């Protein structure tokens, strides 16, 4: 019997090791190819250059246009998801009667379950023409439509995580506020929200890293033209869309163009990694322990 237990423990340990091994493997592959890339292209050119044309006859490897594209789309997505997500979380947590809550929560989860490729086509073929009626200068590929649709996609994430955070706030705090004569809105905004702050920030940062890593929506609807711009109305290219573009094409292994995939991938990975670190730090800093 003891032998059996030992075997089980080992088997489970191996499963856990597999996930660690995979992560280590991914980081290793990214690092090796990125270093090979950086041997040929100086780091300063890569990080601070403003022209990204690695596949053309006179190649240029400044990754800023891709980064700006990613940040722009993610910023628009967060601008949509954060307020709407938080407000729906406040409503579901503080105001909604049980019946409404039972209906709205699963429906929100459906939004999260729609395949991202469907969101991409929705952005390209429905949202963009709709906006073009109001903004005639809007290009067919732009940053605005995928940004908004991405916001809708990550809204359930913000909403459900924030709501869980707010539910975790003890009722005693709320009742204390009511006892002091506060209205429901004052309680929600001035007592519950600050108390749940760490959980809500964690939700927001998770949503942000989801937005940055999102591929399908931007690959379909945002365009394939890397450019440094502040206008969300023109075609741009995000880091993820670039990786898709080169991978779908025919770039021979081992060339400089091939290594750009890994360099951009490494940048993405580092970006989300940093965001997660910030999230942990914020949570630790603002955590409220309720005994």
């Amino acid at each position, binding site marked *: 019997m003891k032998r059996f237990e030992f075997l089980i423990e080992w088997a489970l340990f191996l499963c856990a090791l597999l996930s660690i091994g995979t992560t280590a493997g991914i980081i290793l592959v990214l690092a090796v190819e990125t270093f090979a890339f950086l041997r040929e292209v100086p780091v300063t050119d890569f990080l601070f250059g403003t022209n990204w044309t690695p596949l053309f*006859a006179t190649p240029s490897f400044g990754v800023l246009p891709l980064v700006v594209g990613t940040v722009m789309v993610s910023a628009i997505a967060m601008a949509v998801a954060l307020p709407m997500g938080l407000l729906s979380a406040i409503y579901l947590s503080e105001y909604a009667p049980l019946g409404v809550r039972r209906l709205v929560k699963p429906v929100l989860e459906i939004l999260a379950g729609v395949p991202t490729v469907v969101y991409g086509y929705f952005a390209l073929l429905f949202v963009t023409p709709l906006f073009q009626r109001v903004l005639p200068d809007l*290009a067919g590929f732009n940053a605005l439509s995928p940004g908004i649709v991405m916001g809708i996609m990550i809204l359930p994430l913000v909403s459900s995580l924030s709501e869980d955070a707010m539910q975790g706030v003890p009722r005693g705090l709320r009742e204390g506020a009511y006892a002091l004569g506060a209205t429901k809105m004052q309680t929600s905004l001035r007592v519950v929200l600050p108390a749940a702050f760490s959980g809500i920030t964690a939700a927001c940062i998770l949503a942000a890293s989801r937005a940055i890593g999102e591929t399908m929506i931007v690959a379909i609807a945002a365009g394939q*033209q890397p450019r440094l711009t502040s206008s969300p109305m023109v075609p741009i290219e995000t880091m993820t869309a670039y990786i898709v573009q080169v991978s779908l*094409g025919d770039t021979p292994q081992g060339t400089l163009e091939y290594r750009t995939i890994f360099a951009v991938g490494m940048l993405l990975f580092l970006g989300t990694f940093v965001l997660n670190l910030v999230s942990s730090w914020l949570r630790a800093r603002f955590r409220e322990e309720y005994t």
Partner: protein
Amino acid sequence: MTQGFVRYAGVAALAAMAVACGGGGNQPASEGGEAPAALITVDGSSTVFPIAEAVAEEYGKANPTGRTPTVGISGTGGGFQKFCRDEVNVSNASRPIRPAEIEACKVAGVEYIELPIAYDGLAIVVNPKNTWATTITVAELKTLWAPEAQGKIMRWNQIRASWPDRDVRLFGAGVDSGTYDYFTEATVGKEGASRGDFTSSEDDNVIVQGIGSDELAIGFLPLAYVEANSSRLKIVPVDDGKAENGNGPIVPTAQSVRDGTYQPLSRPLFIYVARKAADRPEVQQFVEMFFSRTDLVKEVGYIELTPPIYELARKHFADRRTGTAFGEGGSQVGMTLESLLAREK
């Protein structure tokens, strides 16, 4: 439901699957007594893709028990890379094979038979709502697409002063594409030399979508894609400034491409068949359909070559004549049908 019933159902399901798979696998062998025809793999130009796909479909209809050839769209350059690595049987190309690719094929021991199959007029297209670009000259195309234009030529009135002072948004084929190679050769004068800040995609449908949904867009597309999306795109006639072959701006039509007036953007389309694959009967049937079903060329929107050229190509294939008629390799600008015929002899 008892445990016994579940077990029984599971075994029955597995048995059924085994019979179905086993039965299906045995079928072709028991039918004709010979091995089933292997798959014909085709890859390369997205320009040639509509023709190759149409012929593959017809082949599939003519051989219901065989396997329909698969046609990829890696771009002319991408297709040649795979072809010279012996990964595909047929390479679709919207330009002749280049010296570097000839070398790669020689090194890998891949011999190829070059066959012209159709004529394409590369069209310059804008959005139907574009009211100002009614004609364009080759010189203006060069201004717009040259490498020096990157970051500088960003507005319509920088191309022609009478055009509006608004953003110009560029769309075009990607660098793996023969269309891109040919277009840069024909307008800028050097294959592969262009600005980098435009939406470049090997998938022509992305370009159609981009131009069709943006009033300020302009781009270049193979004629077949324009014909297929005629409600979303508007062709701009091109003036090459040479009166000898047609005065003024010319619209790409079957007539103007055939008689050589739509220059410099008329070009022949090719398929390159691997010498080894040419000995297979199914490949021979497939290739023959390119010459006998020229109605498909017209159906997809390209221009048929003349019967003498098709005869010549048929003869080259029957003789298994390998090598290219274009010694220098790469895009040939100003290729009229007459000069093509003279080359191929």
